[in-house]
């Protein structure tokens, strides 16, 4: 239940951003709706729904069972961080180097222990992607640090 209260508060923040943006853009009138008109309505709907969500959660809080597992597990957080780092470094480091590293990360996060298996899989994956994209499909993925 506490999760829903948290989600409700997050949605209230979204609705306030929508209200602020709508007023800045200009709401206009119903016979001449401006760019902020629909965002204002959306903010209103989200605000009402988030208050309903919070109210319903608070009402049911005493009878709710305690949450057994965390919302975000360590494995999920690590995978998402790996994906984010890939996005941040792919253009500098190069697609294939980053693919190699992220494949190692995924396999290790998933619990593959043998380094030989991990490294061979990562190398094969990177080479396979290079062959498919750069050679067969002729899509030039960035080479990054491998650029001659």
């Amino acid at each position, binding site marked *: 239940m506490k999760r829903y209260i948290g989600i409700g508060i997050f949605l209230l923040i979204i609705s306030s951003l929508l209200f602020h*943006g709508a007023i800045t853009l200009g709401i206009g009138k119903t016979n001449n709706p401006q760019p902020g008109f629909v965002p204002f309505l959306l903010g209103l709907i989200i605000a009402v729904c988030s208050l309903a969500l919070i109210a*319903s959660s608070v009402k049911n809080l005493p009878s*709710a069972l305690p949450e057994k597992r965390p919302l975000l*597990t360590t494995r999920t957080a690590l995978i998402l961080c790996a*994906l*984010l780092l890939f*996005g941040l470094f*792919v253009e500098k480091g190069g697609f294939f180097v980053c693919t190699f590293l992220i494949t190692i990360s995924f396999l290790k996060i998933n619990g593959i222990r043998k380094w030989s298996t991990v490294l061979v899989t990562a190398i094969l*994956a990177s080479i396979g992607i290079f062959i498919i*994209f750069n050679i067969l499909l002729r899509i030039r993925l960035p080479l990054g640090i491998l650029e001659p």
Partner: protein
Amino acid sequence: MSDLLYGFSICLQPANLLYCFLGVLMGTLVGVLPGIGPPGVLALLIPVTGNLPPESAVIMLCGITYGAQYGGSTTSILVNIPGEPTSIITCIEGYQMARKGRAGPALGISAMGSYIAGTLCIFGLILFAPILSGFALKFGPPEYFSLMVFSFSILIFMAGGTMLKGTIMATLGVTLGVIGLDPTAGVNRFSYNIPSLMDGIGIVQVAIGLYGVSEILVSLETYVKGEIYEKRIKGLLPTLQDWKDSIFPILRGTGIGFILGAIPGIGVILPPFLAYGVEKKLSKDPSKFGTGVIEGVASPEAANNAAAAGTLIPVLSLGIPTGASSAIVLGALMIYGVRPGPLLIVEAPQVFWGVVASLYVGNIMLLILNLPLIGVWVRLIQTPYKFLSAFILLFCLIGSYGISLSANDVIVMTVFGLVGYIAKKTHFELTPMIIGLILGPMLENALRRSLIISNGRFDIFFTRPVSLIFAGITIIFLSYVLLTKKRLTGMRGED
């Protein structure tokens, strides 16, 4: 008929045959993988279709759709893991058939039932799509707005979870659609001077995140290794008795699936369940259902494929998706520069009739291609999930990056992977969000234009007959839900 022949002439061109074949192959290959359903498969493979001419891209996309559905059925029958809600019924009966040593006929009737359904649905499409398109040509902004609101209300109710959560997700989806350039005034909205947001949020990146990344993240926590059927699969051709038992269920499932699939908001989830329920009701011995009866596979599989064909009617004729898969197909059509709607048949007949013909061609390819490759799919399923999930995530990365070779797309995919993950764990449905993202700009445009036409009066939605019908049905439906308090909030007991 001449239009259908024109469609076949498009579809049977060697290049388009190849694309259809590749679509069916890739769709089945990815669809077989546990933990990823047809929407995820479509989202992952859309970037592959990016450089093709529109009619070829759409034909390949249709092939991917049919392949993904069949792939999901294969996993259900052989591993007893439903990748999608639509595969649950196939799990119940199909896996029981496999345990009895009848995996071959289960897989065979699944493919053949889908082929029969796809073939029959061509006639439905030929008949109804042009009629609906002609009717929709008379639609103005108020009619479109009311229709979209009607679709959303049904979708939110049908999508699962509670209506409050569905409304939140739909509204968030529409909000995402608002980000970027306002088409009327030309001002940037909610982009906060971030260049990648100025063009709006990409549908494919969001879909890959929501349906690809998040599904894998959740699957890694909840994956239960199914009992893989490991005996040699034989007898893929159903026997005469199997045909006698299956033919009428297939026909009934086709009718149920096609009609329900064409209703905006119903989509493909309900038809297999309803078809199964009908067969059980009509059976002389309902108690045998659940023990592995072939009609329990034939009818839902036919309904599944027919519903997918039925969803093409509102997608192609009105530009309104009925579920997650059709929403992603609609998004893809827009990326290809094809404008789905009443003018599609006139402006791009090669696309429309090519899609209709691909229903037949794609399903033939499924029969020819997939049944002999069953052994390959079994070996693929037997790959440890630790490796499979890593490769699927890699595939998601390549798919999102390959759209426009931009790292920002990977970041968007990751963010929505997190959003989808949290949504699944807190029982928020994703379908309303993706449909909101796609329909949001159209909804806003229709609302603003309606208000300008009516000089600011909202009664325009109730004074025009067609708009009044849609608005009236929506109000009656929502009143019923409010009065009976069906699944409004339902917070208690959900955690």
